[in-house]
């Protein structure tokens, strides 16, 4: 009797959480975001691009501050800074060299510093900075949802077309060319897609927490799977589940959804890592 009562009230509580229209939009956003997050995230993890992805997110921050201050749409500006950053990392240190990580770190710190100076001293962006850095699910526009849906389709299409190129290039980066695989071009496309996915994720999770959506589900799935297809499917499903849980957590504790998603994702990763040891 008691058990049935608590199940029923739990169900009510969960449906209450998603009663408000803005919460439904938020839910849709996170579920859609889980698709590029899991599909591209798997390649991010396999190609060891987690740090790069985090850095691209941070690199968009000064662009976001400018767009906010000038009242122009954030996405094109963020995409420009993100792609510029990706090009800078590729130009500054070739993949596989020890220098690449250092270049990424250097550019990351520079981007964050420039963003903060712009926000605090030049434009006085004030409380808006929080939203740019950590995301918000309150202000999601139709455009945000459409962009995320479009990114989900784009990620699936690119994965279908390029998965052999990416697999051969990730397994054996230098040897792929002699297989007749255009690995270098495929790698550039992957970096550009990651930059685009980062930009799409910004609205919900913010510049500093994009890895919560793009890396954590795939990194967790990597612990429990041994095949590429399974890895991607588990990562997408896990990303959706973590999104739902994070929204509930965000509502219950009144914390930002980006932070809730990061904590949920990191918590699940930690639990799985400990259990799998």
């Amino acid at each position, binding site marked *: 009797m008691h058990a049935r009562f608590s199940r029923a009230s739990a169900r009510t509580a969960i449906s209450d959480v998603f009663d408000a229209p803005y919460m439904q939009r938020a839910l849709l956003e996170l579920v859609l975001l889980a698709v590029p997050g899991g599909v591209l995230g798997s390649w991010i993890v*396999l190609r060891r691009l987690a740090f790069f992805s985090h850095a691209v997110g941070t690199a968009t921050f000064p662009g976001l501050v400018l767009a906010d201050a000038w009242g122009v749409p954030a996405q094109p500006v963020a995409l420009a800074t993100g792609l510029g950053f990706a090009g800078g990392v590729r130009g500054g240190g070739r993949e596989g060299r020890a220098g690449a990580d250092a270049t990424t770190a250097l550019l990351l710190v520079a981007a964050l510093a420039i963003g903060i100076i712009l926000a605090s001293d030049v434009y006085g962006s004030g409380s808006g900075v929080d939203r740019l850095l950590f995301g918000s699910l309150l202000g999601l526009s139709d455009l945000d949802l459409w962009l995320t849906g479009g990114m989900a389709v784009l990620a699936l299409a690119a994965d279908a077309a390029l998965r*052999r190129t990416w697999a051969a290039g990730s397994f054996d980066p230098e040897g792929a060319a*002699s*297989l007749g695989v255009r690995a270098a071009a495929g790698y550039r496309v992957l970096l550009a897609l990651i930059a685009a996915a980062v930009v799409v994720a910004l609205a919900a999770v913010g510049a500093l927490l994009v890895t919560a959506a793009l890396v954590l589900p795939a990194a967790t799935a990597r612990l429990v799977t041994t095949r590429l297809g399974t*890895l991607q499917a588990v990562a997408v499903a896990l990303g959706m589940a973590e999104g739902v849980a994070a929204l509930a957590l965000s509502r219950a504790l009144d914390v930002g959804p980006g932070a809730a998603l990061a904590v949920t994702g990191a918590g699940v990763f930690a639990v799985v890592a400990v259990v799998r040891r």
Partner: protein
Amino acid sequence: MSHLDVHRLSGGYVAGTPAIEDVSFTAGPREIVGVLGPNGGGKSTLLHGILGELPVRSGQVTAVPAAHVRQLDRTRLDFPVTALDVALMGAYGRTPWYRRLARADRAAALAALDRVDLADRAEDAFGTLSGGQRQRVLLARALVQDVELLLLDEPLSGVDAVSAARIEALLQELRDEGRTILFAGHDINQARRFDRVLCLHHRQIAYGPPAEVLTPEVLAATYGSELIVLEGGGLAVAVDHHAH
């Protein structure tokens, strides 16, 4: 008709400091060419040069399509692929992006794994195989590429005796089927069994049948201080294992 014609090939990775200079030789069907030389002597660079992958190069290379088996320690062990997946990568180059892999390619990959005695390990994760087994899988991948020229970079280093014997026997079979094989390595005694030997120490020291090429003078010029004279007059090479 030759499968490989290298004419005055020079080149390297940095302009101004060529890793190989003035290499010229021709290799035809049914030939295993041993490429001997010290570490850093340009063996891997030569293979990259033949593939057209050197950033800096001069001279001419005329070659039929080639498969490259690189040193074993360059592949990733943590990547989620099976032995069959890796063998199938040999078919990627001829499969357009919008097509699925052909049934025939899958059959070819299974046949190639069978040829390296790993048919029963086809579904095993690549990273769980031994070094010698991984090398055989990479050879199977080269077989699936179905080319007439194989470039093998130290294919027996880090390989157990069983795998080494299987690989050597397979290379003889492939040679007898009409292929050309370049075998970069260190083992002078093994090179005596090849059809031709190229001695390389930045420059080409000698090229020809092993009986003519493998003289103490040529080997001394090739290996310098790495060459050891054994009791009884035999020669051996002291190999410092390198990581580059």
